């Protein structure tokens, strides 16, 4: 349905809303990239920047909420318009949470400056976290494309991709546990890294949720087939 509304101001409002979601998504993507980069390079200034910038994302969420309330009150949207607007409330909420996780990664990066043994053994798990983050980042990018293009198939592909993230997180969980068993001095560092990994894994879940909202926006229902989950860490005991 690409044709325009009779009331063109309605189209302006909807476009404005979409632009804000895309802007927010772009910021979230960059925050993830920056937070992982700061962790890998152990760049404390960059980590502080990430913590500060989270504000922008929070403010955008508020702006989006306001725009949505206004749209609902003034335009009484129905059908595809209504679905698209309702999806935006949920997508912005998910994006905001992803932003929070990036901020948390950077906070942990700052906390790690006290542990001192980062160069010693961090590199292996860090590479793994970085690989996970790369996947999640591409998921964010693709889900935003799916949102803009109203492409449910693309959204479904993103949803399927989360399985890989879960799998890597599960593996990293076991790896970090063995480091902790080797030497109790590793526990602080490994616990932080475990949380970082869990953060990235949770981001994947939020992207998955966005993908489902895109699917709903297009088809009016959430995807039917259940997703394969491969994060076993919550039920694992070593």
């Amino acid at each position, binding site marked *: *349905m690409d*044709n*325009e*509304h*009779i*009331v063109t101001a*309605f189209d302006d409002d909807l476009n404005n809303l979409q632009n804000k979601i895309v802007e927010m998504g772009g910021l979230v993507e960059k925050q993830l990239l920056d937070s992982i980069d700061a962790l890998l390079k152990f760049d404390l200034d960059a980590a502080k920047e990430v913590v500060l910038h989270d504000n922008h994302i929070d403010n955008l969420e508020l702006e989006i909420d306001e725009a949505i309330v206004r749209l609902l009150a003034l335009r*009484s*949207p*129905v*059908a*595809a*318009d*209504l*679905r698209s607007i309702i999806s935006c409330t949920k997508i912005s909420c998910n994006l905001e949470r992803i932003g929070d996780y990036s901020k948390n990664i950077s906070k942990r990066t700052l906390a790690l400056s006290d542990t001192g043994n980062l160069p010693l053994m961090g590199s292996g798990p860090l590479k793994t976290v970085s690989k996970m983050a790369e996947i999640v980042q591409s998921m964010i990018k693709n889900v935003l494309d799916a949102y803009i293009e109203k492409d449910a198939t693309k959204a479904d592909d993103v949803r399927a991709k989360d399985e890989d993230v879960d799998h890597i997180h599960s593996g990293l969980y076991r790896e970090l546990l063995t480091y902790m068993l080797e030497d109790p001095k590793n526990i602080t560092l490994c616990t932080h890294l475990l949380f970082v990994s869990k953060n990235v894994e949770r981001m994947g879940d939020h992207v998955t949720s966005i993908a489902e909202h895109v699917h709903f926006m297009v*088809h*009016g*229902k959430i995807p039917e087939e259940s997703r394969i989950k491969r994060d076993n860490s919550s039920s694992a005991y070593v």
Partner: protein
Amino acid sequence: MTAKPKMSAKNVGVSYNGKVALSEVSIDFLEHDVISLIGPSGCGKSTFLRCLNRMNDTIDGCVVSGEIQLDNYNIYSSEIDPVEVRARVGMVFQKPNPFPKSIYDNICYGPRIHGMANSRDELDEIVEWSLTSAGLWEEVKDRLNEPGTGLSGGQQQRLCIARSIAIHPEVILMDEPCSALDPIATAKIEELLGQLRSKFTIIIVTHSMQQAARISNRTAFFHLGELIEEGKTDDIFTVPKDERTQSYITGRIG
């Protein structure tokens, strides 16, 4: 098990002096349904509504084809008396049109000509029941002998609803009953429809999509003389199947 329709239209077409206004409309109306007919001006929804109690009979050059059944009787069959049809299928119009008579006589008009009451007491009973059902009794019970035309627009419209239900129709047709009313009077009529649905089947033409969404459990969308889509109101307003329905209700075609 699917319920038996109260009324059903099969391949109904209407033309005025050879010009087709409506074609191939087939739809079922179940008992106690409130069905909204929506669509842009000139789409045929009012034409279709008027077929349902043979109001189009009075228009020269109007030809109705197909079949409309009321409890399995074809209302266009030559053995059926249109007056009988209109007693069973009542109608409320866009503008309130009370008779230039007292409130009491407005209600009694139908019951009298149909011989539904044998005494003044029985008439009184019908008047009270009809006005109460139309949510007007409390407002007018002390001035039943005053002219109906002296009421406010919203009250007049409820008087017309009371008049149409006085003869106990089974189906009530409404042609934009709220378009001449203010929001408060509209809300009262909408509230009333919610109560009336337990007794009647209500088919309503409305230009207000929000009204259709609020009051009806089924909605039918007409466009250019065709029935495009009919279904649960919830579905029509959230996930319509047809692109044209989508375009109309979201304000893209009119």
